[in-house]
């Protein structure tokens, strides 16, 4: 294992992309930064620019309107980049799977490395998923 891949595993910077989520998952993502869960212990932090991202955290069922934006954001992220589908909608489409504007789920649009189901997933579940992703990288 080289030094850069060790660094990659220990320092995942997360860019959070809302692809048509109802905001519940997004609130739970913010919970991970609070003192109780403190995801910075694992070296993770939320970044504002996709050019700094190592993990694309995609929440939401990917509506037709945001489909081109999701693809463009993925292409703009510097490789290697891992993609995590968050929430029931991100993993399967959830209750929106029969909707007229459903273009997802996330793994139909971009390659996904980890799935975190739940509606919304608890912060413990998010941390568990991310740690499993770290083991996989």
């Amino acid at each position, binding site marked *: 294992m080289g030094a850069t891949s*060790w*660094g990659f595993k*220990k*320092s995942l910077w997360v860019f959070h992309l809302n692809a048509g989520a109802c905001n519940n998952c997004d609130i739970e993502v913010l919970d991970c930064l609070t003192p109780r869960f*403190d995801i*910075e*212990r694992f070296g993770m932090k939320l970044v*504002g620019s996709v050019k*700094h991202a190592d993990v694309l955290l995609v929440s939401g069922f990917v509506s037709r309107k945001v489909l081109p934006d999701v693809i463009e954001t993925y292409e703009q992220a*510097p490789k290697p980049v891992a993609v995590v589908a968050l929430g029931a909608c991100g993993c399967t489409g959830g209750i929106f799977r029969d909707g007229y504007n459903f273009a997802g789920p996330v793994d139909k649009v971009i390659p996904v490395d980890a799935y975190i189901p739940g509606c919304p997933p608890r912060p413990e579940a998010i941390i568990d998923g991310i740690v499993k992703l770290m083991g996989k990288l």
Partner: protein
Amino acid sequence: MASTLGLVLNFLIFPGLLFTAIVGLLTQWVDRKVSARVQWRVGPPWYQPFADILKLLGKEILIPEGAGRTGFLFAPLAGLAAVGVVSTMLWLANIQGGGFVGDLIGVLYLLTIPSLGMIIGAAASGNPLASVGASREMKLVLAYELPFIIAIFTAVTKVSPMTLRLDGILDYQAVNGVLLGNASCIIAFIVAILCAQAKLTYPPFDVPEADTELMDGTHMEYSGAALAVVKLSQAMMLFTLPIFFITIFWGGIVLTGWGILYTIIKYVIIVTIIVLIKNTNPRVRIDQAVRFFWGPVTVLAIIGMVLAMVGL
């Protein structure tokens, strides 16, 4: 020839780039850990900044469409080199007494180059948010340079005979006690710490970066190794500025006997002050920052200067 090689080694390894980078990254960990404790969190492990830099070195460098390649990639390198030179000059003046006439002015010049590099790099990236960040950084440089220079020259005025050599200031302090013992220099020190906050673009003066507003502003478009250079020069600034203040106001670095402990304590105190200011203040608007520096801070700096002239 040997001395040229020695200088190159000084610049590249000890006290220059490599040493400054390692200690700077450790300081950045202290910064993140203290911030985490202030917010009642646990915080990252000690190797976190090193992992960040190593990871960034292994990632793809993206150059945005329509960006000026040369300016975009070389401006951060100029900043990194400038901080390395400043660190080398300060340490050589402290350890070997190796100064030359006017090196203080050289240090003041070189300390602005990282900011200028960020302005050039951000303007060359062709991103609207980055260019807003660049324009704010420009205003911030104009705002803090005036009180910063007045504060440093308060110390120069206090030293008799007046000297612009770093080792001259150190020699004066070795004989007559540290400059921080004088009222004028305490005021100048406070002003300098406030300006350091803006030089490091830390809150409350992080207007050019503004995480939530400009998405990292000036270095928004950087990725991979280029971002590593930007982050590294920030870490090195965090190391170099406290060393500069210790040299000018607080008796300099001593690497013999108990001096090592005192030096570390001085350094940690200055870093902790900077980190605590960072954690207890919200971001100000750019107009408030300029008004703050040109108003109260400059007045304070001038009061310090006048006190130094009347001999306090």
